[in-house]
């Protein structure tokens, strides 16, 4: 079977459903071994783009290439190079974790060792005999990841991998994603959690109403909006105030210091949430 290089390139991808445009002329260039994050609020078109890239949907126009191969020409066998977890992908609830993976091991012609390794990788070795329906949401998420990791794919498509998980479970999954990157895998993830994107991603794209409104490294994107820097001051009377970090604030700051009203102060840089709001006027969680 031909292996696919993990690079992803899209050119002017568009998609509409029943006359409503969901994706408008999407251009992406993701390098092999990169963690790429697609950020946007619900309904922005993130899942649709993953579905197009993984062959579940055809674009209305535009092209996409994975490892230089047109996605329309990627065979079913070559898709084995993809590890996919979609938010709505289910598990066989009556079957235990091992049997859940055994089905897919059978389809891909993998051995028992592959199943055991995948379960070990996601920390579910002790739960292999537990019915999937009895797993917590975090463990179910890990089982889905195990299914995606099992074929040792070159590219991972993760749709909202930590959605609805508690911080500890999300941190576990972040660790696994970073581990995959260390092994040279390309990771394409969608999320609406900006801290997740900042922590994990080499590059991100902010998607709003089907259009990419910003694209680049998270820090560089934030830096573009440095004029939104503020000064947070904690006053001696217990109040917190936030003022723009510009020359107009100099007098206020000087006065607070000279009168001894300021206890602490620090600058705050714009985060992705602020950037997204600045560009779209919407909140990421909307």
């Amino acid at each position, binding site marked *: 079977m031909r292996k696919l290089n993990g690079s992803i390139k899209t050119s002017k991808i568009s998609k509409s459903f029943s006359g409503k445009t969901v994706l408008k002329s999407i251009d992406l260039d993701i390098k092999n071994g990169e963690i790429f994050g697609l950020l946007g609020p619900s309904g922005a078109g993130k899942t649709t783009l993953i579905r197009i890239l*993984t062959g579940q949907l*055809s674009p209305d126009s535009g092209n996409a290439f994975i490892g230089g191969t047109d996605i329309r020409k990627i065979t079913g066998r070559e898709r084995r190079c993809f590890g996919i977890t*979609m938010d709505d992908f289910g*598990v*066989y609830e009556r079957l235990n974790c091992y*049997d859940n993976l055994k089905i897919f091991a*059978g*389809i891909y*012609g993998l051995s028992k060792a592959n199943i055991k390794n995948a379960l070990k990788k996601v920390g579910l070795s002790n739960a292999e005999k537990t019915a999937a329906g009895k797993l917590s949401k975090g463990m179910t998420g890990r089982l889905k990841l195990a299914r995606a990791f099992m074929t040792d794919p070159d590219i991972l498509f993760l749709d909202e991998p930590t959605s609805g998980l508690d911080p500890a479970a999300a941190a576990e999954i972040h660790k696994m994603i970073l581990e995959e990157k260390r092994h040279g895998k390309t990771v394409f993830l969608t999320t609406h959690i900006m801290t997740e994107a900042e922590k994990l991603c080499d590059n991100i794209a902010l998607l709003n109403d089907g259009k990419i409104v910003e694209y680049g490294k998270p820090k560089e994107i934030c830096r573009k909006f440095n004029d939104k820097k503020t000064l947070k001051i904690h006053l001696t009377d217990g109040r917190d105030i936030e003022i723009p970090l510009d020359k107009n604030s100099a007098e206020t700051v000087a006065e607070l210091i000279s009168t001894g009203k300021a206890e602490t102060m620090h600058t705050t840089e714009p985060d992705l949430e602020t950037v997204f709001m600045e560009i779209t006027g919407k909140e990421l969680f909307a």
Partner: protein
Amino acid sequence: MRNICVIFRKQVIDTLKNKTILIQFLMFPVLVIIMENAVKIENMPEHFFVKLFAVMFIGMAPLTCMSAIISEEKEKKTLRVLLMSNVKSAEYLIGVGSYVFIMCAAGTVIFAIVGSYSGVELAQFIMVMSVGIVLSELTGAVIGILSKNQMTAAGVAVPVMMIFSFLPMLSMFNETIKNVARITYSQQISDIINNIGVSGITAENIIVITVNFAAAVALFTAAYIKQFSAINRV
């Protein structure tokens, strides 16, 4: 072929833990053993319960099992995962269909043993039961394919199942019902089973079953094309 075997094995493991499906396969074969041994009424036709329950079995088990299995996979979004894993929709349906067929065939063997069929009569019984199973499977598959979830599937499957499995029994008591039931394959199969060893298969039997089969295949094809091309529309 490998994918069909994987789906078949999955169904075997899953059914052992799925009482709703398991009971469909076991209920009538167990009932026939009990009733044939427990109820002895004077002038009752020979193997009355075998003939009665065999038709109810093929009208019920394959139809409800196919629709329940497919609709559950759709509802829980596990079918999507299978299709994304390079399992073709035809492979999936053949895998599930062959599993349901074998389970129902096992039930048919129990009916044949309890009914003491042998030789040509046994071959005729198994053949006509097999035709009935396939027809009910196709009908159940259509319902499962077109339903969004298990509740919708059950809402359609139960009345359809009742028509095919209970009409032949009710037609024993009412001539009008019998006239209506004649257009269903289950009534024709009931007639054939009742006439095994008495008279042969009639032209009416063959024509009605063939028309039912053609209709089921047409419906199945339409549902298959509609659903599996609809994957591209989300």
